[in-house]
């Protein structure tokens, strides 16, 4: 071997090609996946839904731009993640919400939850959900839908709406959270595109399904389970928020546990808590476990052989 060959073989090998997917393309896919539910929101709730969505998205984008501008950072809104945060936030609001909630929530989400922690990739809580919890704590009645089936269910009675209405979205609730079927279609698209992992929503929704079937709260088990699954924000949050890559574990097992924890915490709140829905609080709590779950489920385990050389 000549020195020339030795030099070549000892050089640092690094890849010179990159996969076509970018953060922007992934976020764009999320937006595509939200389109069916968005159309349903406009169809059921009309122009008012459009203004809520528009105000939320603009608020999120402007907040991030302003933060980047005043802290002299590169403007990062072109990765579309702020658009996704704004739109997802608006999906949780009922159509009766005052527009200032649509302004304040995303601003809080972006400025405090995302940018203050270091921007995309560094936040520990899901911005859209934290923004929603923020407005919910500040203006509880303004962002609660009247006649929410989960609130009825909490009183120990079955809601009037049929399971079919809940499946397609003919019920009161957040403008984007009601159409379970369309949200599921969006989720299927994201799984096929490899943007989200099926494990988190499956473990999340699966846990809720199994537990509600086993403990039907003195109501017919199947109907109770159906209402718990199909009304409220379970599908929206399980598919689009719990799978937020930044705030969920990276390992397969970690994701299964994470999803199950989300499901259990949701039910804890729904059975015993003050809130009828509870998914937002459940996911935010589970977000805090992400670092721990990544550690305990790390696939690499150093072995005794490592010390051999």
């Amino acid at each position, binding site marked *: *071997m*000549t*020195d*020339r*060959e*030795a*030099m*070549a*073989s*000892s*050089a*640092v*090998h*690094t*890849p*010179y*090609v*990159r*996969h*076509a*997917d*970018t*953060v922007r*393309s*992934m976020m764009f896919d999320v937006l595509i996946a939200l389109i069916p539910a968005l159309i349903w929101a406009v169809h059921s709730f009309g122009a008012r839904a459009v203004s809520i969505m528009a105000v939320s998205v603009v608020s999120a984008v402007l907040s991030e731009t302003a933060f980047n501008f005043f802290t002299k950072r*590169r403007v990062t809104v072109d990765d579309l993640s702020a658009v996704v945060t704004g739109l997802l936030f608006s999906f949780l609001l009922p159509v009766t919400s005052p527009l200032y909630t649509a302004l304040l929530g995303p601003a809080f989400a972006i400025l405090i939850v995302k940018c203050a922690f270091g*921007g*995309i*990739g560094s936040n520990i809580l899901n911005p859209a959900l934290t923004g929603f919890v923020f407005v919910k704590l500040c203006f509880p009645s303004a962002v609660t839908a009247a006649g929410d089936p989960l609130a009825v269910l909490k009183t120990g009675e079955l809601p009037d709406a049929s399971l079919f209405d809940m499946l397609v979205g003919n019920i009161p609730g957040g403008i984007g959270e009601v159409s379970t079927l369309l949200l599921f279609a969006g989720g299927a698209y994201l799984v096929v595109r490899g943007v989200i*992992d099926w494990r988190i929503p499956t473990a999340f929704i699966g846990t809720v399904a199994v537990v509600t079937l086993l403990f039907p709260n003195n109501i017919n088990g199947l109907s109770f389970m159906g209402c718990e699954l199909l009304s409220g924000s379970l599908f929206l949050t399980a598919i689009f928020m719990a799978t937020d*890559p*930044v*705030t*969920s*574990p*990276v*390992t*397969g097992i970690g*994701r299964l546990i994470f999803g199950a924890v989300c499901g259990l915490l949701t039910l804890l709140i729904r059975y015993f808590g003050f809130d009828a829905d509870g998914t937002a609080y459940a996911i935010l709590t589970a977000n805090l476990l992400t670092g721990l779950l*990544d550690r305990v489920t*790390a*696939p*690499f385990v*150093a*072995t005794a*052989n*490592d010390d*051999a*050389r």
Partner: protein
Amino acid sequence: MAYVFRGGIMFRDDKTSRGEGDLHRFEPKKLVLYAGGDLQVDVGARVLRGQPIAKGVFSPVSGTVADIADVPGGTSVTVESDGEGALFPGLVKMHKKLAECSTEEIIGKIRDAGIVGMGGETGSVADRIADVIGKADVCIADCAGREPYVTCDMAALLERPAAVINGLKIFLRALGVRRGVIAVPEGSAAAKKLTEMTKNSGMISVLATSRKYPAGDERRLVYSYTGRELAHGADTVSLGCVIFNIQTCIAVYDAFVSGLPCVSRVVTVGGDCFTGEYNVDVPIGTSFGDLIDAAGEMCAEPVLMLNGGPLRGIPCGADGTVGKTTRAILLLSEKTAGGSDTDISPVCIRCGRCVTHCPERLMPNRIYDLIRDGKTEEAVAAGALHCVGCGICSYICPGKAPVTELIAGLKAKNNSPEVTDHD
């Protein structure tokens, strides 16, 4: 069927990326050979194909020595070919039957032919055999590499399958091993052809390996055959496997039956600047520039030239020359190679793709964070030195984070041994 290793990634797998096209031949007018010293020729001397020029260096063509120059680390010898290809009369083939050859005779023959591992591992094959005698129970001829564009081994195998089988038999005889395995991607034309050719052979069989990259990496190959993971830093022979590249088998076979030393090899000229695949059998010492001219029209403007594959290759210039371990010369356009320095500032969004695809079960995202935070000890504890440098984490990252690059830098500081990739 082989065991399927964890992680890895499936790259494009179509007609233009399988090495199943024609194998071309090319002989340049002028070639440049590198020798360590002790030249046996002078300027103006006539040399013949296979004639020794220095220790372990042979003239691949017949012609005249046009120039001798000092270069860092040795001497360069420029040979002008006369195009006749006249053989050096001093070449001696093995006169005995294989069954009558002793291990020493075979090793001597391989050593005289100057054969090194032709999959990029560079070490002397004769030394490797001597090292592992009595320790191995299977010899693997490797054609399992799945790095995009790099199909030279597959082209060489499809051109001369019998030479590979017989070359492997020579290895088995030298090693005293009774099992020989030819590792080829499952579903490939070669897998079919070789299964047919070896069906009556008691000693040689086909191992249909996963079509995922990096199947040709020695740790993946050992797993594919044994189903067991090689300990970190361990020699493949600790699990009874000794691996030689398919082209090494061919070189050994040639040295055995005709006495011709290692003077040529199959190289891929490719990349997205060419429409199809182009594998060419060229003399050692051919310049990359000549090789690219021979490959024909380009369909895009190249921005990057690589010696090796797009994940493990290193940038090179057109003045480089084909060595015994040169596998591929790739020309990449802005569209493909531009991705490595886009204006997107790198970010990790913890999507976990690097974790899913890492063949070594690492969490590249975590190691990346730790190195960026300057916590090198914690990065090492998280397994950073176990990285084999396959490059998948950087390739797959949607945030375009330079994960492999940072880990490679850490490994370089810690003098970690490079893991051989036989791709």
